[in-house]
């Protein structure tokens, strides 16, 4: 039974799927290469059996998680991401296996920022970060126009202060 919490409307860019696929391929690819190198070295130089077993087990697990995080996760994650802000709250909802709903009062927002790594730049996307007193939350992969509008909106709304500070 799903939670009946009114979710925000905003969606992140469809291109996020490609970006995540690329970055996960690179990340997992490097890890797999390291494992492959170790396994080859191990069989050449006759390492202990238990070390080889451990390498095969962890290598296998990495390969499985690579399949999941390259082919399956990006699609679902992109589809399930929602963000939004009204006068009073910034709301986020995301998650594949565990669905997270987050509510941050506008008055508690300390800063908003945009970030762009090389991959995101290639696709013209931005990551928006909302920082509060205690933590920060990121909305990944927003198109430039939306990212800037949303940032300005939050920056304007977050000007109000609470009595207790």
């Amino acid at each position: 039974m799903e939670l009946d919490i009114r979710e925000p409307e905003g969606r992140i860019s469809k291109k996020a799927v490609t970006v995540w696929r690329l970055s996960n391929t690179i990340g997992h690819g490097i890890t797999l290469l390291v494992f492959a190198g170790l396994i080859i070295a191990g069989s050449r130089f006759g390492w202990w059996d238990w070390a080889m077993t451990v390498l095969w087990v962890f290598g296998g697990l990495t390969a499985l998680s690579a399949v999941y995080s390259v082919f399956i996760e990006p699609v679902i994650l992109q589809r399930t991401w929602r963000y939004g802000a009204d006068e009073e709250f910034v709301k986020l909802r995301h998650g594949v296996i565990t669905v997270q709903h987050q509510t941050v009062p506008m008055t508690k927002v300390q800063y908003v920022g945009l970030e762009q790594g090389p991959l995101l730049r290639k696709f013209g996307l931005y990551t928006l970060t909302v920082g509060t007193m205690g933590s920060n939350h990121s909305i990944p992969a927003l198109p430039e126009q939306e990212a800037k509008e949303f940032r300005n909106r939050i920056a304007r709304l977050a000007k109000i202060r609470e009595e207790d500070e």
Partner: protein
Amino acid sequence: MENRRMHPGRIILALYELIKNSAIVFIFLFVLRRGSDAGWVVAGRWIFIAAISISILNIILSWWRTTYRLEADSVQIDSGVFSRKHRNVPFRRVQNVNRQVPAVLRLFGLTSLTLETGADGEDASVKFPAVTKAEAARIEEALDGYRRERMEAARAVPGTESVEGEASEIQEPLPEKARTVHFTAQLKDVLKASFLSFSFIALIPVLATVYSNIDDFIDIESRAEGFLSFLAGSGFVMSITIALFALAAIAFGIIRTYLKYGRYIISSDDERIYIRRGVLTEQSLSVRKKNVQAIQITETPIKRLLGLAEAKLVTVGSFEDNLEDISSLYPFLPKQRAVELVGELLPDVRLLDGMERLPKAALTVRMLRFPWIAVIGTIALYFWRPEFPYVPDWPFLAAALFSFTYLLRYFDYRNTRYAIRGPLVQFRKGGLWRETFLTRREKVIEASASQSWLQKRFGVATIGTTNRAKPVHVEELKDLPGAAAEQFDRWYTERNPELIPAGKEAEPWKTLQSES
């Protein structure tokens, strides 16, 4: 307003600390090696004298060069002997005030005062290491005056300002407000505290430190061995020694507890809560009721057996060492009394009774969760196979680990309660250690609700709150019914705190500039 220096007692305090820290080196160089004229000892003495002289000079100069000034809305501090540093700490950032009065300062009738802000890093607090009590009161009054003025300004019609009124209010000491004393530690409280905190065990590390320190200089090992064999020779002498040691340990524990928890007084007035404690070193905290972010009540297994509990105020400021538990409302109170105390101190917070229990489905979910620690522990046991006398074989250990894990889960399920009512939310959880957490909606700076795949199958969810503290206080309650999580979400979005209109904050600066 004029610049002021710390009381010259600051120099005495710093000198005392210098002596305390360098005493061992002094004893070593000038007492134990007094006859020696080895090169390194002689060089060491000269270096020591030089270092001490520089430190003393530095202490005096830095006292001379450190000044502070109270403004209408902030405190300005200038410090630094050569490179000057200016700090401006707005009063609105100050969350609570604490004092730590070591015995040395008390001899001179002085006190130290620390203003804690919510900021991070080294500028998080402003410390006045030695000021007279009257001056400390003046600083606190300046804080209160500023706050009152701001509250009134918020209430008054915008546009009607009274700059004159503000200034005079701060200079004149305000009339003493009536304080209510809520709790004073009696002798029986101290005795209870000393046994419950196992303070008598503390004698052992103290003895060990003394022993190893003496052993560095004098070879007592061989003497001790002779003494031990003498003891072992006679059962009578042995038992008397053990009895004496036990007595000494208990006496030591009681004295130690008395020095820390003795003269524990909790009081309050309309605005603030005051906690003070300590006999030789006096520690105190004064926190605005409005700045208390949450209440936490902890019951350890022993305290639960005896019906005791510790209530703690969650506040924003961070505390230096030895002070971290100053926000506790006496750790060894009967639970009922602790609950009443919270109600007396914070009129707008009341511990809720009749909390909801978790549904049966929560127990199922909890039992189905993968027992990571037990499984990893079992794998480790399988490979390690510990073989010690009196320790059973690994399968028994693994079985014990699993049953302990599941038993704790069951206890936790039984103990967990929650209530979302009016402006308050309250959680209780814990298997053996039980913890109750209570906060107001306005104090929650972030709320979350989440649902894992497993929880979704059974219609339960997790909710979480984040409160200001250092580091932030995150509280989570797992496996409450989905409907309750939805209710929690709605409850939070009805949050309605007092707001300060944008731009209001900038105003005091205008008056400041015109003054200077």
